[in-house]
């Protein structure tokens, strides 16, 4: 059976881990060793941002350039300050999932906050001063954790294996609860599991998508660190229901601390006998391991993720077929988000009634939300579905320094931007969609007065341009041309009337792109143009102050 840990991506990662970078000779040798054409090895190595082709300097400093960090001032002067230092490399990167500590960055992959420039310079010169972070030892207790003590964990799967609950019952419960994919797309979970269960092909796979990379999204990070056992149990349940025997936990490489937490939780599960061969003495087998992503937002797209797991360039596949029919190695695969899987044990243990009762205003259940931007206490909150945007901002400590609310992205960087008129929209898939945006990945960015929304929209568009895999024409060229146009407009080189082109481009990209990245890339920018018509006028006024 093919093994992702022996694939080309793993081989490249191992080589880089050992030698610091990939040389021409290394590429040749790996090609020879693995019996692959050289173009394939180089094609894969040059696709992923984590691989480098030059020897690493003493310190590599990364500065996050995306929305929440950008609003917090980003790297500011740091880029210039650091670029003169010897043996220091500085580069701007896409969101690293530390938006609650914006402006964020890393020194040799250790997350840091960028607000104290002098301190960052000292770290860059002496990277050994920074300790690699360890998982926190006193995690929070969440309402979605049905287990009061560590001993009680894995009760849901125990019940299934004892015959107290059948696979059909699990599916029925999931369907009844209305649980939907919490990674952004919102596909009904019960239906997904049922589809894979019905597939005759063997083997089947379970993949957990922990590649959370959308700007402002970091809820999975906290779930992995604090309640990894719930996600693991969700994966075991998915395997039990669908008939899979192996699973992979695909995590972004920037989440090292979280990887350690997950790794030790998996080891714990093996010790308890809920993972491995003959789970709890039954005929059920399930092996689970962690796979570290070689990087890139697009890997969060499920079929691109599968390509990476197979050791190829992480380009999204044409669909259909969907992963449920032909997923990893062309086999039926359940691929779910960290949070979706973590919710399953609680649904089974506490029941649908309890679940429904957790929501507000007639909406069902609980959900983790990350909030960043202009709020006093950015972070991850488990809140009832149906909570309004206004209420959630209050939960997060209210507007930062009492500033006036201007706009909000309710569901991550790919959700449309809403104005103050939508503050009372309940946070739920349907309600958010009716309000003209989406719940997405459950990542809210709150924007106060003073931020130029055209600039913000351009920042988001730039993110999608940077992260486009380049496979299909609409996304590769569309995102590039859109950014070029916006930058020309922001630089005063072109008039506002030209921005109308974006409407047509957005339509084309959303209709013809292969994956969600290209389909939503211009959405947020378009929503600014549509929902905030005054922003353009305000820019024009600022550009030509009245005498």
């Amino acid at each position, binding site marked *: 059976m093919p093994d992702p840990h022996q694939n080309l991506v793993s081989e490249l990662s191992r080589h880089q881990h050992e030698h610091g970078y990939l040389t021409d000779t290394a590429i040749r040798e790996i090609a020879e060793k693995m019996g692959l054409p050289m*173009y394939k090895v180089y094609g894969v190595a040059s696709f992923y941002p984590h691989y480098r082709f030059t020897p690493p300097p003493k310190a590599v400093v990364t500065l996050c350039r995306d929305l929440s960090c950008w609003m917090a001032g980003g790297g500011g002067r740091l880029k210039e300050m650091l670029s003169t230092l010897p043996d220091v490399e500085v580069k701007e990167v896409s969101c690293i999932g530390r938006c609650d500590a914006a402006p964020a960055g890393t020194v040799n992959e250790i997350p840091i906050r960028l607000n104290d420039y002098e301190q960052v310079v000292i770290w860059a010169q002496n990277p050994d001063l920074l300790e690699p972070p360890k998982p926190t030892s006193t995690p929070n207790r969440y309402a979605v954790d049905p287990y009061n003590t560590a001993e009680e964990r894995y009760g849901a799967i125990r019940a299934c294996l004892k015959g107290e609950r059948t696979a059909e019952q699990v599916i029925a419960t999931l369907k009844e609860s209305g649980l939907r994919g919490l990674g952004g797309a919102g596909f009904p979970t019960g239906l997904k599991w049922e589809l894979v269960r019905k597939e005759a092909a063997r083997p089947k796979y379970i993949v957990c998508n922990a590649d959370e990379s959308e700007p402002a999204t970091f809820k999975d990070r906290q779930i992995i660190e604090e309640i990894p056992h719930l996600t693991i149990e969700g994966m075991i349940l998915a395997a039990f229901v669908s008939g899979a025997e192996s699973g992979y936990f695909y995590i972004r490489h920037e989440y090292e601390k979280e990887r350690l937490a997950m790794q030790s939780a998996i080891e714990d599960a093996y010790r308890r006998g809920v993972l491995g061969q003959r789970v709890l003495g039954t005929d059920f087998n399930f092996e689970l391991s962690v796979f570290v992503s070689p990087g890139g937002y697009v890997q969060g797209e499920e079929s691109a993720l599968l390509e990476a797991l197979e050791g190829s360039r992480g380009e999204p596949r044409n669909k259909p077929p969907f992963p449920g029919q032909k997923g990893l190695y062309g086999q039926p695969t359940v691929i779910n988000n960290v949070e979706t899987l973590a919710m399953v044990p609680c649904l089974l243990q506490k029941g649908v009634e309890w679940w429904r009762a957790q929501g507000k205003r007639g909406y069902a259940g609980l959900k983790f939300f990350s909030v960043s931007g202009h709020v006093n206490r950015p972070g991850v909150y488990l809140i009832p579905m149906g909570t309004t945007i206004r209420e959630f901002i209050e939960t997060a400590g209210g507007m930062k320094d009492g500033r006036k609310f201007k706009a909000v992205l309710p569901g991550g960087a790919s959700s449309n931007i809403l104005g103050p008129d939508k503050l009372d929209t309940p946070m739920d898939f349907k309600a958010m969609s009716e309000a003209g945006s989406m719940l997405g990945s459950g990542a809210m960015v709150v924007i106060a007065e003073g931020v130029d929304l055209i600039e913000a929209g351009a920042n988001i568009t730039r993110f999608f341009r940077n992260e486009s895999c380049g496979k299909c024409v609409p996304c590769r060229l569309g995102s590039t041309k859109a950014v070029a146009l916006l930058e020309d407009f922001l630089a005063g080189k072109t008039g506002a009337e030209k921005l109308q*082109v974006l409407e047509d481009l957005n339509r084309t990209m959303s209709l013809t792109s292969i994956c969600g990245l290209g389909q939503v890339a211009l959405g947020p920018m378009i929503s600014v143009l549509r929902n905030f018509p005054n922003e353009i006028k305000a820019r024009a006024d600022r550009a030509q102050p009245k005498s």
Partner: protein
Amino acid sequence: MSSPETVSLNIDGKDVTVPKGTTIYNAAKSVGIDIPVLCHLPGLEPVAVCRICAVDVGARVYAAACLRQAEPGMKVKTNTEPVVQARKTLLELLMADHPVPCEKHKELGSCELELLAEKEGVAASKNRFAPPPAPRKLDHSAANIAVNHNACILCDRCIRACTNVKQNFVIGRNGKGYVAQIGFDNDMPMGQSSCVSCGECMVSCPTGALTNVGFEAHLAGEKVDIEWLSKLPIFQGISAAFLQRNEGAVVKRPFKKGEIICREGEFGNTAFYLLEGKVDIFISSPVQRATKKDTRSFFGIVRKMANRLTQAGRDTEDPERMKYIPIDATVDLHLGNPTAQLGPGDLFGEMSALSFYPRSATVRASEDCVLLEMLRPVLQILQKNPAFKKEMDLKYKDRALANQLRSMPIFGSLTPEFIDELRNKVELVKYDPGTVIFSEGDPADALYIVRIGFVKVLKLFPGGELTLAYLHRGTYFGEMGLMGEMVRTATCTALDHVEVVRIKAVDFNLMLEKFPQVRAEFEKEIRNRQEQTKAITQIGQTSDVTMRDFLDQGLMKAQSLLLLDLERCTRCDECVRACADAHDGITRLVRDGLRFDRFLVATACRSCTDPLCMVGCPVGSIRRRNSLEIIIEDWCVGCGLCAEQCPYGNINLHPFDTREDDPDHPGMKKAQVRNKATVCDLCTEHEEPSCVYACPHDAAHRVNAQEFFTRHYVGTPKTAAR
């Protein structure tokens, strides 16, 4: 037998029933609806990356018709206003980055992107999108195919052609996002990659990203049928369409018994591949040198000096001298009897075709025969073709390698059995012009023997660099590193299209072990080289002075200048006479040349540090001896290339008469004027050059340029002012 499952759907209002698994594109085609495509090419597995064929199937997003299979009850719309608008916007995006017209459209009017844009009414002049921020690179490294990334739309057709159609596995996609592009192997220039020039990628390319390097020339001869050609074993695997585009560069040539196919010394730009029959390949020019003798005119009134030929004296005794004449074919010619026979499957004229060198030998049909004559593009397609390469390698190893080894005195004692054994172990390796084969200081792992082309051997010295040699066919290099400290002692670079035989260190060492005489020869050779290096190093150490005048006149390159001190010289021409006396009556010295201060730099060989004269000699008859002077061997065929290459006009051609076979009248002889080249050899067999010895006024000096001028001019106001 059950009837195959079918699917019924509706496309643009037409009901269609197709077998299950049919794509929307094919289903539409079956009812006369042509959905435009770019990345799709029937015969290749669809990838749906250009999205031009996106059609409305009633879902949230469009479906790619080339890939998406027809589903029961599907309602497909291929031409609604939104579908057409999306298609036009995609074309507009592609056209914003496309050079208009691209190479392909300019030449053939067949760029699929430009044609489709025109058809859909997407005007280049009305493009709403920004042009690319910077042009992408061009790759002209491959002999037959030009790569222009600017015209590439990343349709992946070449990738599928290379890997799925031809199984060559060379082309892939590199990088990510907007900077992604196609690449060869490990992102190598195409010409240096493992590409076999099958041409399938170029034939599959919809735009001008991969184009045939233009070749207008058409050879005279019988036009070949491409289909017949592509069935020849040596053309196996080469795309017929690619051959079609090089149609004019290969012809079929029948020759009658006795007809001359090509003549030594003439310039040529084609190679010949023997299909049927046999040919003789030989050097008709006598292996002799030009000398002067007194002749009288018919009436005995006018006495004149005429050139004649004599057998060389000292050169035949030279241990460095080879026993075989290297020629541009799969065989070498023995010095004693320079003639051989070639048969079907043999190739000659490779170097002429690749680098336009003069013909090295005369070829005559020894029976009625048929040849393929080809220009460089076709030869290069062949050379990259594994089937052909294998055949040539075998032939070479079978025949020429043994000769080549035996022709080099150093390998004289190898037994035929050992050569047989070695034959299976050696590799033939090709290098493109300018490629460094190894650099000084690199680890030494092999010995090389030149098969085709010229290799420049360059050594760094404290005062600069010295070209030790331009190695031609039948010479070897790399032994110094193997026998010394296992690092390369000089840098060897391919000057033109070079092919070498590579003998791995382990096999070389085995040879030394088995044949003590070979070892002894090599050791002797190495001592000589070390002496040479020492001498040069001493020269180099005094060379920290640069003088503009000197450099301007190219004098700095010289290691040995003949200087005439004009304050002492009485213009008596004793030096010129002495030179003639020392060289069988033909002077190699002319008392004329550049002036520097009070010195005249006479026209005589300067044994340059970079002896360009050695480049291109088709028979390897000009070489540098270990003692650094340059000599011309007797088997010179008089092509005149060395004289042309010498920047200082110091190589002269001396005409002489000979009687040769008359091609127009087989069996008859006719008078022919031929040439032999001469060059100053520094009279190395004497104490000092004859010219210097003969000067009664102590005005002639042979000096090392840098040394001499350093001694005389350092510190003078002229140089100090710089």
